[in-house]
């Protein structure tokens, strides 16, 4: 039995009377884990609390907060989910002032499963488990090291499997636009599979995830055909770090590059002629 479940249960029990609800995971029928809002009226549900597999909690808390803007909530979050909530806060999708963060630290196996570089929380005041070092991402390194024709062949093959379920967009906590460019026939053709090359769906999505992707890997996990789509996002995240000195979810006060007017130094780092 994971010690973290007991510790987490105690913390939740303690803060449950002070808040309107604590968002966590609960084991349902058939051992299927799903997000659940624990409330003080039904503390017995805490016995069914689970911590793995992780679910896209930032989008769930956004959903709840939109229906109940004044509610005081707490949420059990891993490193990626915390980063996700910070990014959503910056884009005015979430009011973090009404949300208490309970930081759940990932274990080595969980971090390796997600190929996560930052499996720990930074902003959460309450912490469960021991923070560990990030792990390497061999798949991204492998693809980054490929030659250009190899990359093209790899992605052509991967994208030709896509069944356009829009799952990677639907599950993404950072995809919160009301009007989605991927649903616009001008950009993404409907009624054609496999999609034309270059795949507008994947490349447009990769562009839109610039400085937004928090490496939670939910998109890769939900993909029915197993496209490692987050590799694009991670590679771009490295460039964003280099060009704009911006890391998603790291600093709450830092403005995302989408909202910035470039300073002299930033402009030179992008590598354009001037």
């Amino acid at each position, binding site marked *: 039995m994971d010690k973290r479940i007991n510790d987490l249960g105690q913390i939740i029990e303690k803060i449950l009377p002070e808040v309107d609800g604590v*968002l966590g995971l609960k084991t*349902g029928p058939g*051992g*299927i884990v799903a997000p*659940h*809002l624990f*409330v003080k009226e039904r503390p017995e549900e805490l016995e069914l609390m689970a911590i793995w597999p992780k679910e896209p909690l930032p989008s769930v808390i956004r959903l*709840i907060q939109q229906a109940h803007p004044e509610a005081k909530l707490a949420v059990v979050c891993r490193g990626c989910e915390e980063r996700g909530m910070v990014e959503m806060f910056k884009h005015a999708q979430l009011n973090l002032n009404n949300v208490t963060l309970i930081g759940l630290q990932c274990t080595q196996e969980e971090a390796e499963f997600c190929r996560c570089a930052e499996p720990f929380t930074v902003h959460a005041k309450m912490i469960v488990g021991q923070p560990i070092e990030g792990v390497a991402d061999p798949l991204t390194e492998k693809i980054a090291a490929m030659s250009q024709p190899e990359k093209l062949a790899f992605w052509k093959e991967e994208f030709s499997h896509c069944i356009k379920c829009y*799952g990677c967009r639907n599950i993404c906590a950072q995809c919160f636009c009301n009007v989605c460019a991927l649903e616009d026939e001008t950009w993404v053709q409907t009624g054609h599979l496999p999609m034309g090359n270059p795949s507008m769906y994947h490349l447009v999505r990769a562009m839109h995830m610039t400085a937004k992707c928090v490496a939670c890997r939910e998109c890769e996990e*939900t993909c029915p055909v197993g496209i490692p789509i987050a590799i694009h996002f991670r590679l771009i995240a490295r460039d964003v770090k280099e060009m704009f000195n911006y890391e998603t979810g790291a600093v709450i006060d830092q403005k995302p590059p989408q909202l910035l007017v470039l300073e002299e130094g930033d402009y030179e780092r992008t590598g354009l002629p001037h």
Partner: protein
Amino acid sequence: MIEYKNILTTCPYCGTGCAFNLQTLDGRIVGVLPAKKHVISEGGLCIKGWNAHDFVYHKDRLTRPLIRKDGQLAGSSWEEALTLVAGKFSQIKAESGPDSIGFLSSAKCTNEENYIVQKFARAVIGTNNVDHCARL
């Protein structure tokens, strides 16, 4: 009290049997989440499954039976509608024989519901005229 919970269910669209969690907030369905550890769908869904909650509150959805009276469809109770259907079935069967009746079932029904439809056709009405939209 805020009530948010997920209800595990099977996708209503095709016969694959993918499972997903219906997110409900204060008693209303608000979205779909794939069931990650489910043996069949393994956390994946197709575009139909991802939008399976959309029709639930659709304004075009029929919420009660309609009966055509004087050329106009009018809402009625289940009691009235089922009595009418049963009466007409018996009448047609008596006048023109059981093979004058056919049954069309739906791919959106569960296996068990489809089984009931064919059983009803064969055992109660006495015809083999059973068909299904997914057979096309």
